[in-house]
């Protein structure tokens, strides 16, 4: 530990931290553009200048160093006893001296030389570091009267646009492609004031390689200005009109921490949120763009029943009535309950309760087919495209019962008279054997969010909610239990899956009465092995690792 003096504060900090991070810990902002804690530090934006102090022997006292230093590359180390400043400090630095303030003003004036000031039409406005720092630290005016460079707008790849005029060449995006994905598509072309970020092109301008990797969307997030823009979110909404919740991506079993931006009419954007052990600063494009089905117009809005071979809308009462009627006519041997690795722990837990209530022996998990695994130097996208495979297993597999998956599940389901199946994903194709088995089931109830290949075969379809429309927990492949949070409401009469299952259990005479999901989580913490601390309060924003 090093003992340092930052402005007038005396701090005990870890060796190896830089001044930006140290200041951040105590709530002092050192403005910076090129520094990103997930990337290397070229110190090229010069925005984070701070004023270190040193001992000046001729004067016999501690004075500001002759030159300002960049905060990002100035790291704090414990000094040897004889080199301590004032007899006790390892390091003395100021982030608020007049020299530092003047330097910030000057740097900002340079950075804004070729910047177009097109904030009114720029997507970044409102979450733009150039705006924020100009407001907080800038001069407010420019002395530059010459002609501005106007480099062209560029299409870098399937997800990303580059507005070169707004770029301040901090090179975060280049370092991301070099260090995190290892694909190296981006670089700087030309020199000095004419330099631009670009992809490899022929001399006539046609690209030879596109920014087309599974993580390309992250460059938009790390761009501190409005230069790199997401094609998906372009001109959709001003950031200040959206509300934000901290949640978890439902795209695969990695369970990236994300923030979800939404308005009353739907989900607008997913962005990664830092988690040290899971996704660091990043998320993949499949997850980032995988929210569109939530806003789909084809979402199931009412329960549906099969009449003369086709599905027609009905009421909840009617649907439950039909299910109960069927259940009373079928013995528990020929029933099966199939949970889903798309729905939350709490919901799977309630399905377990349903199975116990009906005394059903055959319990399985209906997962999405496996996708491809992508391994990048600093990020892995897992092949299991379900957010909660592990959690579903933990919840459904209580006591002696085995939870069926894959091949055994379909053998187990064949010839059943009543099957209650939860899907929850729009992209779950079913193959011939699966289709055969499902078609032959006497009475198939499917809980789903969209009309999928599975729900097309159902006798009753119950409209559930997506990950954006309910609270709950997912357990990722490493065993992190993390919370998803409700943003918008489910469309029409659709309900969060746990409420549907609870109603059914209640109607069957089950003795449960949960008012909110947290209550189920409390019970899970009590009853499921390994989930001892997994109540919502303790899980919080960073999740907890289940004990095994």
């Amino acid at each position, binding site marked *: 530990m090093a003992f340092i003096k930052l402005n007038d504060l005396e701090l005990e900090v870890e060796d190896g931290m830089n001044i930006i991070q140290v200041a951040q810990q105590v709530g002092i902002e050192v403005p910076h553009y090129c520094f990103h804690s997930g990337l290397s530090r070229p110190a090229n934006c010069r925005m984070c200048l701070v004023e270190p102090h040193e001992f000046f022997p001729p004067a016999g006292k501690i004075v500001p160093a002759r030159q300002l230093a960049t905060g990002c590359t100035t790291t704090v180390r414990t000094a040897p006893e004889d080199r301590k400043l004032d007899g006790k400090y390892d390091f003395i630095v100021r982030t608020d001296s007049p020299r530092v303030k003047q330097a910030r003003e000057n740097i900002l004036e340079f950075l804004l030389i070729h910047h177009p000031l097109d904030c009114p039409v720029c997507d970044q406005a409102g979450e733009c570091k150039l705006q924020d720092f100009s407001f907080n630290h800038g001069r407010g005016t420019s002395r530059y009267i010459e002609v501005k460079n106007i480099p062209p707008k560029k299409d870098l790849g399937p997800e990303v646009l580059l507005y070169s005029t707004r770029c301040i060449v901090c090179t975060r995006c280049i370092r991301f492609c070099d260090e995190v994905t290892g*694909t190296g598509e981006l*670089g700087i*072309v*030309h*020199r000095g004031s004419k330099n631009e970020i*670009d992809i490899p092109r*022929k*001399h006539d301008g046609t690209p*030879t*390689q596109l920014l087309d990797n599974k993580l390309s969307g992250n460059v938009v997030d790390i761009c501190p200005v409005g230069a790199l823009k997401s094609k998906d979110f372009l001109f959709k909404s001003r950031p200040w009109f959206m509300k934000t919740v901290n949640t978890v991506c439902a795209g695969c079993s990695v369970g990236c921490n994300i923030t979800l931006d939404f308005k009353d009419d739907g989900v607008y954007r997913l962005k990664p949120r830092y988690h040290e052990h899971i996704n660091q600063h990043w998320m993949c494009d499949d997850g980032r763009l995988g929210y569109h089905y939530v806003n789909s117009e084809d979402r199931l809005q009412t329960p549906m029943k099969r009449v003369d071979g086709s599905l027609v809308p009905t009421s909840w009462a009617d649907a439950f009535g039909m299910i109960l009627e069927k259940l009373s006519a079928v013995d528990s041997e020929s029933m099966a309950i199939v949970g889903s690795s798309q729905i939350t722990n709490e919901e799977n837990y309630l399905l377990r309760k349903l199975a116990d209530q009906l005394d059903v022996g055959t319990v399985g998990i209906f997962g999405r087919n496996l996708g491809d695994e992508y391994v990048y130097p600093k990020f892995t996208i897992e092949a299991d495209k379900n957010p909660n495979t592990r959690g579903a297993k933990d919840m459904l597999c209580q006591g002696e019962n085995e939870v069926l998956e894959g091949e055994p599940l379909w053998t187990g389901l064949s010839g059943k008279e009543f099957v209650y199946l939860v899907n929850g994903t729009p992209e779950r194709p079913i193959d011939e054997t699966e289709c055969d088995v499902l078609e032959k089931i006497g009475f198939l109830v499917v809980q789903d969010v969209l009309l999928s290949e599975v729900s097309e075969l159902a006798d009753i379809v119950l409209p559930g909610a997506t990950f954006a429309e309910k609270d709950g927990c997912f357990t990722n492949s490493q065993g992190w239990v993390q919370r998803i949070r409700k943003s918008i409401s489910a469309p029409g009469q659709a309900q969060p899956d746990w409420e549907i299952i609870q109603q059914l259990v209640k109607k069957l005479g089950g003795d449960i009465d949960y008012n909110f999901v947290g209550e189920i989580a409390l019970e899970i913490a009590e009853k499921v092995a390994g989930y001892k601390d997994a109540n919502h309060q303790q899980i919080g924003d960073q999740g907890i690792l289940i004990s095994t």
Partner: protein
Amino acid sequence: MAFEFSEENRPKLENLIKCYPVKEAAMLPTLHLAQQQNGYITEEVMDCVAEVLEVSVMKVKDVVTFYPMFFEEPVGKYVIRVCHTLPCALRDCKKVLEYLKEKLGVDVAAEKDLSKGTTTDGRFTLMKSECLASCDVAPVVMVNDDLYKNLTPEKVDEILNSLEEM
């Protein structure tokens, strides 16, 4: 058409790479060698260099577009660089430049259009240059790798004549 280093240049390249702790560090000399062989740097040359040095193509492009000494378009056999920085300007490099323009019948090459400064017979390319570090003998001109000092229109004639003979 794919570019490859010639039989003659391959051992040179290997020696070059050996001089540096990491392959990427041999970027500049490798590009010089490639330009010597091919005349200018094409997409294929960049692909080849990237492969040889085990870096991304963009890293090579980065370097090629940074330095004005690498050409992305065909240039003449003799590249004439007229220094136009302050001392040369004070010693009337403009006169030298105008004389060369008239004599060769070309304009000065633009940054992204070298053909503007290249004679139709493909012998000369005329371009402006930043300081050539010989201010004491201004105005100066560099033709390929040779420096010519204290220039006047008469001396320019001499130089061009000597180049004609070569």
